[in-house]
């Protein structure tokens, strides 16, 4: 396999590294050739997956276009990609975000990473904590109530 890896390194047309992670919002500047003319089309969306297949490495970008989900798979080392811009760092704990396909609106969004995002995440983490506390107290209350009933 080492020969394969070396060959793939040698024939790689562009040396490009993933400057984003899964969950980031990116703008992919993609060259489109129409006859002799060449123009650049921008595809902006969330990176939901990446397949590591050596030279054939690809990443999947999902966006909502007029409320219809559109996914596009780009070969990372393609010369057709002019530029990849990172618009927003998304916080994600998974490598494949296929669950976003079933979500709409606000729940289809990811929290932002970074110092500013941390503040958000702290406040967001507080809220479920409170809920959890409520649930615990309710849970304590219910058995005690039932005990009383049994006693009586």
């Amino acid at each position, binding site marked *: *396999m080492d*020969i*394969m890896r*070396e*060959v*793939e390194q*040698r*024939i*790689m*047309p562009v040396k490009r590294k993933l400057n984003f992670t899964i969950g980031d919002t990116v703008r992919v500047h993609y*060259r489109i*050739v129409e006859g002799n003319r060449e123009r650049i089309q921008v595809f902006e969306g969330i990176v939901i997956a990446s397949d590591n297949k*050596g*030279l*054939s490495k690809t990443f999947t970008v999902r966006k909502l276009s007029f409320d219809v989900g559109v996914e596009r798979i780009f*070969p990372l*080392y*393609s*010369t*057709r990609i002019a530029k990849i811009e990172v618009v927003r760092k998304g916080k994600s704990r998974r490598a494949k975000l296929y669950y976003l396909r079933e979500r709409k609106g606000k729940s289809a969004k990811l929290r932002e990473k970074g110092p500013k995002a941390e503040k958000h995440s702290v406040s967001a983490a507080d809220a479920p904590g409170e809920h959890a506390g409520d649930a615990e107290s309710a849970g304590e209350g219910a058995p005690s109530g039932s005990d009383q009933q049994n006693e009586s």
Partner: protein
Amino acid sequence: MKKALIGKKIGMTQYLHEDGTVVPVTVCELGPCIVVQKKGAQKDGYAALKLGFSEVKELRLSKAIRSDLKKKGLKPLRHFREVDLFDDSLDVGSVVTCSIFAENDMVDVTGVSKGKGFAGVVKRYGFHGGGETHGSTFHRAPGSIGACAFPSEVWRGQGMPGRLGNMTVTVKNLKIVKILEDKNIVLISGAVPGRKNSLITVRGR
């Protein structure tokens, strides 16, 4: 006379062209091959070259091959194939490398295909078979092979189940996409018979 080299299949990957098109390619290690024998019209009745490939420990060879190579002053080699005498200037001991081919050359590749074992007619000959559901009782069987009154015999060439693969197969008209001469690596578009590390013969057209 067709230029030819022997080598081994390494694996498959993709080749991305400058314009963005992607081609599936097989990575092959071709040569360096050493001419082991030169056959001539006078002595053997036809002209040919016997090429040897892949160095090996001497003790792995049979005594006949070992002593033959030793007599000619050659290194011990593992694989041998006979090819056309494509270059008369070659003689015993001369080395042939993948530089005989150029990018965009068309070639034929011969190798031993992967063995599939005992296969039915659907896999082996592409028979359509029958429906799996909706009350069908005919699934993957070969069906009628000779009818009744006519032809009342089984015609020659009738497809039957049996061993599939593990045969010498030639895939014709494949394009050489890229040559990495220092590594003896040639990228050939499309698939090539055999598993990884199997011996292949590549002939020019």
